[in-house]
């Protein structure tokens, strides 16, 4: 099974994933069994909004407010790339 994410998708964290704000780096940790990924600031902004309600478009809208010097097309592509990677690793779910 292979799904390509689109801007209409409403990503959410997989059941095994918890987010934790790291006191040492002030970045978000994505925690899952026996592993963890320390997210950079942008990835953290994306992942913390993956609640199954926000669409990718909404998430990009939020990012545009902070990173308004970047063309929307680039932010959208990079957001989709990141989510696609996490989806393939089973860290993000998409309700179908």
């Amino acid at each position: 099974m292979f799904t390509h994410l689109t801007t209409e998708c409403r990503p959410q964290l997989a059941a095994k994933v918890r987010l934790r704000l790291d006191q040492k780096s002030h970045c978000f940790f994505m925690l899952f069994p026996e592993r963890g990924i320390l997210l950079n600031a942008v990835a953290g902004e994306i992942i913390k909004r993956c609640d199954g309600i926000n669409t990718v478009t909404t998430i990009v809208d939020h990012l545009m407010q902070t990173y308004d010097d970047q063309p929307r097309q680039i932010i959208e592509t990079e957001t989709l790339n990141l989510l696609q990677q996490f989806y393939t690793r089973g860290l993000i779910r998409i309700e179908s």
Partner: protein
Amino acid sequence: MNKQYRPYTLIAELTHRCPLHCAYCSNPTTLLKYRDEIDTDTWLRVFREAEALGVVQVNLTGGEPLLRSDLERLIEEAHKLGLYTNLITSGIPLTKQKLIHLRDAGLNSVQVSFQSLNDAVAERICKRPALNQKLIVAEWVKAVDLPLTVNIVLHRENLHEIAEIITMAERLNADRLELANVQYLGWALRNREALLPTKEQVDEARLIAREAKKRLAGLMEVLFVIPDYYAEFPKTCMGGWGQKFILVAPNGLVSPCHLAQTISGMQLPSVQNFSLEEIWFESSGFNQFRGEAWMPELCRTCERHNVDFGGCRCQAFHLTGDAGKTDPVCSLSPDHHLIESAKNQTKNTTGVPYNFEYRPGHGS
């Protein structure tokens, strides 16, 4: 004091007591007894100190962690500290009600380990019938909405089951499948002659695992850990000595890995005498194999010295008698013939009946 290292995972080895007797158990061959175990308050302090040091995950393991009557309380505290908790269990002493209590205390995920899908093989490995209970427990885990990891330790007698195991994990709706070959230390080293697979077995299993990993991407995480005897270079054992993991044994001894205390002369302090912070940063045990100064020239000048850090120190010690040597599984190691001869022996002993040396169940 060198503050560059940060432990991310606490391995809380709560007890060495276990209902199973697996012939490849990762516990040391000298097991601790119930009366050696540290009390609840000490564990709670360990969790708090671990979190303050930077730990974000706790693996609750053993032995069988469910044999600690304070498990729920420990999970509650870990949860309060925002630590991600994995229960690593045989499933044997579990009831559905108990599982619900643990979940409500804040447990984040459960790993159930299997020996084989063949009753006779499973019983031969762990010396009691266990398969049915494990399947039931795995179903409960999903039924109460906890993420499930199915773990199976692979060796000569069950590697051929790999496709069947993948199907079972799919049927159970596992979130994660660990197909982990035996690493030949501790009990497994004692039984190596019977457990070590052939290269053909490993290659075939690896292909099947690779296909499953691709096919199940996004649905189930599939991990295949090869036996390091069949790798060209050593594994990055524990992510490097004293770099990412901190293990607390049932008696409070603190160690960089499961078997560090089996290295002669290794000085490991106890949480009963020191704080975790002092131990992590200042103890001679944790500092002994950090950095490059200790490395043999072969490793120090190797381009992989920051990838595998010279491999497993325990393996170097148990195979060569010197924990400071290059891990013999490295194809460049002067001791690599030890690995080659073990593999050659495998070709001759396959199919020959063998009596395992089993670990005792409750410490002895």
